[in-house]
Every structure is written in C-alpha cells, then in structure tokens.
C-alpha cells in the first residue's frame, strides 16, 4: 500500500472593511437592495474612470506587514481581461506584475510544534458583482452592489499537508486580519473566501502531483471536508493508474463531493497589462513606517502580555486572544472586577460554548463586560452559587439581562441561612436512612447523593460548601 502525502495551497480572498469601494465613492454596506449601491464607475458605464481608495491601500499594506511580507514599494494595478456578467467592464482591476506584498509567512501550531506557512504574495483587486441563477426562468439576475468592493488576495505557498494545518492557517489569518481591523472575515457574508489548490504525491517523491482547484466552500468545516474529499478522490485515481486532471472543481457540501466545473474557457489568457487609467503607487519608507507604527497589538503579542500582566496560564491566554473581541472583552471585564483567572474561565468555557451554540462571532455579543463582572462579584459575595450562576449567565448571554435583577426576579439567591439549611438537611437525612448507612459503611458515593438531594430540596440554591460541611458534621457524629 503506497503512502501518499497531500500538498495544499490556499488562495484567500478577503474583503477590506472600508466604507467605500475600491475605485468609487459607493457604500460597501452589506445587504442593500440590488443595484442601489452603484455608480457609473463600478457598473462600467462608458466614459467612467477609477480613483483609488487610500484606506484600502493602507489596509492592504497593514495586512502585508502583519503577514511578514515585503511591501512592493513601486506598485501598480493591472487589468485582467475576461467576459462574465458579474464583471461589468469585462476586466477586473487587479495586480499581477507588482503585487503589494511578497514573500511573507505566518506561524501556526501543529502537533509537532510551530510551523511556518509561506505567503507567496498578496495583491489588491476589486470584487465582482453577484449573480442569482433563476432555475425555472432559465435566466440569471445581476446585482452590482458588491462589484468594486476592495479585496486582498492572499496566496500561500503549497506548505500545508493536512486539513488540520489548512484550518490552523485560516484561523490564524482570520485572527490577524481581525486584530488589524482590516476585515471582519465573515465567511457567511462572503468577506472571507478560500480556494483550495490540492495535489497528492507519494511520500518521498520530489515532484508535485497535478493539482486541482476547489471553490465554493462556505465555512472552515466545509473546507476541511473538501480537503479530505479531494485527497481521497485523487488518491483513488492514482491507485487506479488514472491521471488527475488539472481543473477547477466545485465543492458541494450537501453531497460531500466535488464536481468538475464546466470550464468557462480553456486555458484562459487574461491578457494582463498595466492599468492605463491609474498612475503607479510609490510606497515610501515613511508611509510604511507610519502604518507599521499604527498597527495595533496583534494576537501573539497580546497573548504573551496577558500571561505576564494577568498571570494567567499560556493555555488560557491563547484561547482568549484567539479573537480580538474576546480579548478586548477580557481586558474590560478584568478592569472592572479584577480576578483575571476567574474571568478567563468564564470566557473559555461558558462564552465559547454559547458562541458556538448560537453560531455568532465574539463581536456580536450583546451583553457587556459590566454584566459579566457583576456576575463574578455576585459569586464572590456569596449571593449565588456556581450552578445558579451558569444558569443566569445563559440568560445574560442570550437575552442581555441584568444578573442582579434576574436573580431577584426569579428568586435564585443562594440559601446560606444556618437554620434553613439545618432543617432541610435533617429532613433529607431522615428520608434517606439507607444512604446514611451506606456512607457509614464506607460508600463515599452516598455522601454525594445526600448533598445532591439537599441541593434538590433547595432547588439548587443552597451554598454547596455549607451543605457539605453541615452534612459531614452530622454524619461524623
């Protein structure tokens, strides 16, 4: 049985979060009615001309720097010529000859330690419009709202060898770009898209196998599935002695399979040439330094700082700083109530769980650090126990309630009155003679049972510490 290794390169398109498009003053807001955020420039009207958005260039440079690229100081736009209804000028203004960044790389964590994934180049380009295919009408509708939105395309080296590595790379990329504030990287909204270039070869082989390109993955999970699927497909072909055809394939996540796309044109010649309507960009050292100095603290830096400043473990710091907004939330909460380890636990466990459950990103959290801090203080002050706190927190997260008010409204205050607890415990013991026997005969589990029953009687509100102490006292008599 031959052993194969898979070689993966990723081309990631990222929408820059500028207010206006790359070459005109139209809004980039998501979700407008078709063709309501357009003008003669972005719809390719005759006589229209492009003008470069400075913010987009600065975001691109910032991204290049954060991804450790060399910034191309004499930089140009080129025209990429082809016909498609989503491309109104029948050319896309992109960069081929002098992309804005080259020879970069980022570090990911793998099971075998840290690994650098090379970045071949990053370049700026404008996005195309949106096509909506109408099945029964046999026509397609074209909306140019998205046309002209600034993109950067990040082309990696074929340095990844597994779906895991590919996802780690994408996660890292997303983290960095979000920290920079240059994009919100939302795959569902199309502000981050990835195409997979994949080939397989026998372990030890020097040459790369024939690669295919895959498109249409809408989530990181789908990307992982697509990689696995394509790897299997290619290996199966090679095992049969059949060649892998160099082609573009469309991933269908529902059917967990890919399909060759009918090639729009064989071996397309895009006839790239420098965009004559746009003078070159000369990016000075001063400009680069200025952008570099304005770069906010990125994830890795922040992680180390959190470890040092707040004394939390590396593991915690890594998770909290994996997302810019989560990290921000952490710092703001700690600023109110202190207790960094406690705050970190809440974020790592409950917040992460609920983000996943609700399928939202950290920046979409509706409640504030004030509420989390309050909750933590309430536990510390003995107002509620941890079990209740978890329950309350779920409501804070989903409904943005005030924890204090919620506890009072629902009568969830911790029961820690000696007298009340004493009578409840006595009742429980009286009703569970067998368990008392078992405990005295060495079955420690029985103790937990009695505690559990007591908690049940108090509808979970009893102070667990007191309950433990008091039951033990009675039983050990």
């Amino acid at each position, binding site marked *: 049985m031959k052993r194969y290794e898979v070689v993966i390169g990723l081309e990631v398109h990222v929408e820059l979060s500028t207010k206006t498009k790359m070459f005109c003053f139209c809004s980039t807001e998501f979700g407008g*009615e078709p063709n*309501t955020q357009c003008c003669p420039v972005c719809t390719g009207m005759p006589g229209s001309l492009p003008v470069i958005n400075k913010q987009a260039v600065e975001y691109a440079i910032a991204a290049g720097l954060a991804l450790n690229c060399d910034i191309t100081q004499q930089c140009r736009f080129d025209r990429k*010529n082809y016909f498609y209804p989503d491309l109104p000028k029948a050319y896309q203004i992109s960069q081929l000859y002098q992309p804005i960044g080259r020879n970069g790389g980022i570090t990911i964590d793998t099971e075998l330690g840290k690994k650098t994934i090379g970045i071949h180049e990053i370049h700026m380009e404008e996005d195309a419009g949106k096509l909506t295919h109408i099945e029964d009408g046999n026509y397609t509708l074209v909306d140019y709202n998205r046309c002209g939105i600034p993109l950067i395309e990040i082309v990696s080296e074929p340095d990844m060898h597994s779906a895991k590595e590919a996802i780690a790379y994408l996660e890292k990329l997303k983290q960095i770009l979000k920290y920079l504030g240059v994009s919100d990287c939302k795959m569902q909204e199309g502000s981050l898209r990835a195409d997979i270039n994949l080939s397989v070869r026998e372990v030890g082989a020097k040459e790369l196998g024939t690669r295919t390109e895959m498109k249409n993955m809408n989530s990181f999970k789908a990307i992982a599935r697509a990689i696995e699927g394509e790897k299997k497909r290619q290996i199966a072909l090679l095992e049969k002695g059949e060649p892998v055809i160099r082609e573009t394939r469309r991933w269908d996540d529902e059917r967990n399979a890919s399909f060759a796309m009918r090639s729009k044109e064989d071996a397309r010649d895009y006839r790239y040439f420098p965009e004559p309507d746009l003078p070159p960009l000369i990016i000075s050292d001063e400009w680069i330094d200025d952008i570099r100095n304005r770069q906010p603290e990125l994830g890795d830096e922040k992680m180390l700082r959190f470890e040092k400043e707040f004394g939390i473990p590396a593991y915690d710091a890594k998770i909290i700083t994996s997302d810019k907004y989560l990290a921000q939330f952490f710092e703001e909460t700690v600023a109110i109530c202190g207790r960094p380890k406690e705050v970190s636990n809440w974020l790592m466990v409950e917040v992460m769980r609920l983000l996943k459950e609700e399928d939202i990103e950290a920046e979409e959290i509706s409640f504030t650090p004030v509420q989390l801090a309050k909750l933590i203080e309430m536990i510390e002050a003995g107002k509620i126990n941890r079990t209740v706190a978890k329950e309350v927190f779920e409501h804070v997260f989903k409904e943005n309630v005030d924890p204090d008010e919620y506890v009072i409204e629902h009568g969830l205050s911790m029961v820690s009155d000696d007298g009340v607890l004493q009578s409840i415990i006595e009742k429980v013991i009286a009703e569970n003679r067998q368990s008392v026997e078992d405990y005295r005969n060495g079955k420690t589990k029985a103790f937990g049972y009695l505690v559990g029953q007591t908690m049940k009687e108090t509808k979970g509100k009893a102070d667990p510490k007191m309950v433990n102490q008091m039951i033990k006292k009675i039983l050990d008599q």
Partner: protein
Amino acid sequence: MIITEETFQSMAALAKLTFSEKEKKQLLKELNDFVNYIETMKGLNTDGVAPMGNVHAIENVLRKDVVLNKNDKEALLKNAPEQKNGSFMVPKTVD
C-alpha cells in the same frame, strides 16, 4: 504567415467576435500584414529602457474613504437591454 488560423480563432474567442469565412480570410491577411509591420519596431534598440505606460510621472492619486454616492438605480438600469426586479438580466450562466 506568422498568425495562423488557429491563433485567429483563439483571438476571436477571447474578444467574443465571430466572422464569416470571407471576413476571416480578409482579416487574417490584415493581421499578418499588421504583425509584419509592427515587427519593424525591432529595428530600434530598446535595451535597458523601461516601458512607459503613463506619459507623465504622476503617482499616488488617492481619494478619501467617504460615502458620497447615493442610490442611482433608476438611471443605471435605464439603458439595460433586459432587466427584472431591479437587476440586469442575462441568459442563465453556467458555472
């Protein structure tokens, strides 16, 4: 004949143009004449010369990131050969 019929077909396909047999014959000859003519540029030594796309040394023409354009849908769709629901309409495109 530097430009073959095959090349002609590729160029026509790239430019989305079709020609009758008669037109093709004529144009093929003209393309070859043209190519022969522009070959004469080789007579000028351009070693070490940078290609000049823009005639003036302008650089860094940049604009502010401020939304100035409003909804212009009516005007933009006015010339559309076919439209539906505020969108331009084309025959079904196959990916």
